[in-house]
């Protein structure tokens, strides 16, 4: 492996990452792309959370979250999302070792975890909208809550779709060990969604 910057290749135009700059690129360019996307997404969520903090700290009349929000339900949701992260990383481990059945089982469990989270989120939203009378138009506490958790929920939904597609393709036998990078990239997205939820849960529900 040399430090050559020339992109002359051995195999008909396919450029491998290690022929460019080995110290800067990972073995999988998809990983680099996904990390870059997640960095941007982290800025978006960060801006949302910073705005929430700026609005809240400046307002002595901000309601106590526990008066409106279900802390126990959300703690269970957090636990479910953490479990789905574990199943995702086990699914990746399965496909990396060529264990297709492990990959499919744990991928299915990850999708299930995501669906459970979305279902519980929808249940909580329904409860808050109908019984507690919260709404985006009512006040800033409601607006920041629904916008932050809704934006995150959209990310979870996208991740569930992404994982379901991989699961279906895996069941069709189209994700062999050589394509484990696809699952790794999906895993990065899913862990990011979990990570953001950990922060949202702390800032909106607990603090």
């Amino acid at each position: 492996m040399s430090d050559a910057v020339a992109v002359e290749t051995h195999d008909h135009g396919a450029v491998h990452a290690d022929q460019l700059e080995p110290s800067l690129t990972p073995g999988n360019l998809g990983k680099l792309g996904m990390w870059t996307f997640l960095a941007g997404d982290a800025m978006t969520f960060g801006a949302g959370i910073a705005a929430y903090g700026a609005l809240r700290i400046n307002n002595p009349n901000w309601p106590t979250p526990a008066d409106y929000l279900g802390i126990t339900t959300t703690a269970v949701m957090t636990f479910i999302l953490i479990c789905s992260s574990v199943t995702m990383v086990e699914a990746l481990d399965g496909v990396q070792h060529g264990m297709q059945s492990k990959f499919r089982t744990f991928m299915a469990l990850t999708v299930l975890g995501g669906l459970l989270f979305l279902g519980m989120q929808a249940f909580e939203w329904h409860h808050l909208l109908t019984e507690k009378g919260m709404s985006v138009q009512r006040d800033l506490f409601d607006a920041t809550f629904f916008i932050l958790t809704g934006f995150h929920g959209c990310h979870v939904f996208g991740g569930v779709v992404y994982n379901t597609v991989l699961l279906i393709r895996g069941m069709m036998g189209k994700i062999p060990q050589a394509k484990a990078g696809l699952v790794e990239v999906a895993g990065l997205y899913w862990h990011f969604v979990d990570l953001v939820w950990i922060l949202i849960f702390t800032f909106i529900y607990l603090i």
Partner: protein
Amino acid sequence: MTTQAAVSGYEVEHSGPNYIAVFIYLAVLTGIELGVYAMGLPQVAKVGLLVALAWAKAVLVAMYFMHLAMEKRALAIIAIVPVVLVTFLCFMLLPDLTTRMWTKFDHKIKVTNAAEMGANPVAPPPVKVPPH
């Protein structure tokens, strides 16, 4: 759990961490978070502890589930830069927000048109500003 198999097009260079151990740490940290929340500490202590615990969990997920600990350093730069910038975002406005009145806004006011934006019919009590 070594993963030394070199497969065409995809080579795994590192051995995997113990994911179950990381999961147990995460579950324990979540439990501690809920305990701190339920303890009824003074707000500053509660906020400090909860933020520290949340960041510990986030770092665990990033390092071991997202394999950041095993990646090349350059990739960690992509991950760390937004953290630095977001922390800056969260703190940069605090001196302005906490010492001036200009963004005091009663959260219960329903804003229905642009003319009302910024106006606060429920005026906060007058604050004595010391002469400069």
